[in-house]
C-alpha cells in the first residue's frame, strides 16, 4: 500500500434534475512509472493507480484505464448527468491491490 494516498473530489452540493455537472477528482499518489532509476542505479518498480471509476446510484459515469504516463497525483475532470438525488461513488484501483473509495451526495434543488 502506497502511503499518504488521499482522494479529493469536487462535486456541486445541489443540481436540478437532468442537469449536467462537472466533477473534478484528484488523488495523491506518486504514480511510480517503472522507468525511473533510483540512487543505486536500479529501476524503481512500477506502482501506479491503474483504474479509476465514477458511478452514480450504481450506474456508471466514467471508467478510466490509467497507464504510467499519467502524472503524479492523477487528476481527472469529466461531466456527469444527474437524473435524481443520490450519491456519487469514486473508486481508484492501485497496482498493489488496494482500492481507495470516496463518495459525495448530491441533492436536487
Amino acid at each position, binding site marked *: 500500500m502506497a502511503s499518504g494516498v488521499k482522494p479529493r473530489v469536487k462535486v456541486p452540493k445541489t443540481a436540478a434534475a437532468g442537469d449536467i455537472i462537472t466533477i473534478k477528482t484528484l488523488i495523491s499518489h506518486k504514480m511510480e512509472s517503472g522507468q525511473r532509476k533510483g540512487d543505486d542505479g536500479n529501476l524503481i518498480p512500477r506502482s501506479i493507480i491503474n483504474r479509476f471509476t465514477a458511478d452514480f446510484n450504481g450506474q456508471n459515469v466514467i471508467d478510466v484505464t490509467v497507464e504510467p504516463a499519467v*502524472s503524479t497525483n492523477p487528476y481527472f475532470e469529466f461531466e456527469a448527468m444527474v437524473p435524481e438525488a443520490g450519491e456519487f461513488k469514486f473508486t481508484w484501483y492501485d497496482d498493489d491491490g488496494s482500492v481507495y473509495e470516496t463518495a459525495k451526495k448530491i441533492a436536487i434543488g
Partner: protein
Amino acid sequence: MDLTRRKVLALGTSTFAMASLTGLPAFASLTDDAIAAITGGAEITEGGIELTAPEIAENGNTVPVEVAAAGAVEIALFASGNPTPAVATFKFGPLAGSRSGSTRIRLAKTQDVVAIAKMEDGSFHKASATVKVTIGGCGG
C-alpha cells in the same frame, strides 16, 4: 590532414539524419501497434474529435490534456514519443454528461499526442497535437 571543416560538418549532419531516421519509425510503430490493438485494424477517420493540449509544455511531468468527441463510447490517448505510448482510456457510462474528459499526463520529450475515439456506430476517429516539451517527464 584532409578532414576539412566542410567535411566534418557534412559528416555531422549525415549521422544526425541517420539517427533520427532510425529513431523515429521505432516509436511510430509502437504507437501504431497500440492503436491497432483497439481499432482491430479498422479504418480511422481524421477529425470528429477534439484534442486540447498546450503547444509548449514547460514541464513534461504534468501536461494538461483534454479530449472531447460527441457520440464516442471510448476515447484513448497515446503519447507517440514515450517509452510506452498508452496514456489513458476513457470509457463513458450511461450517466456521462458529455463525451469528454481531461487529465494531466507525462511526456518524455517533444512529440505528438494522439487521441482515438471509438464511436457508437463502431467507427474510429483520430486527432493529434504536437506538444513541445522543455523538461522531459520520464526521469531520463
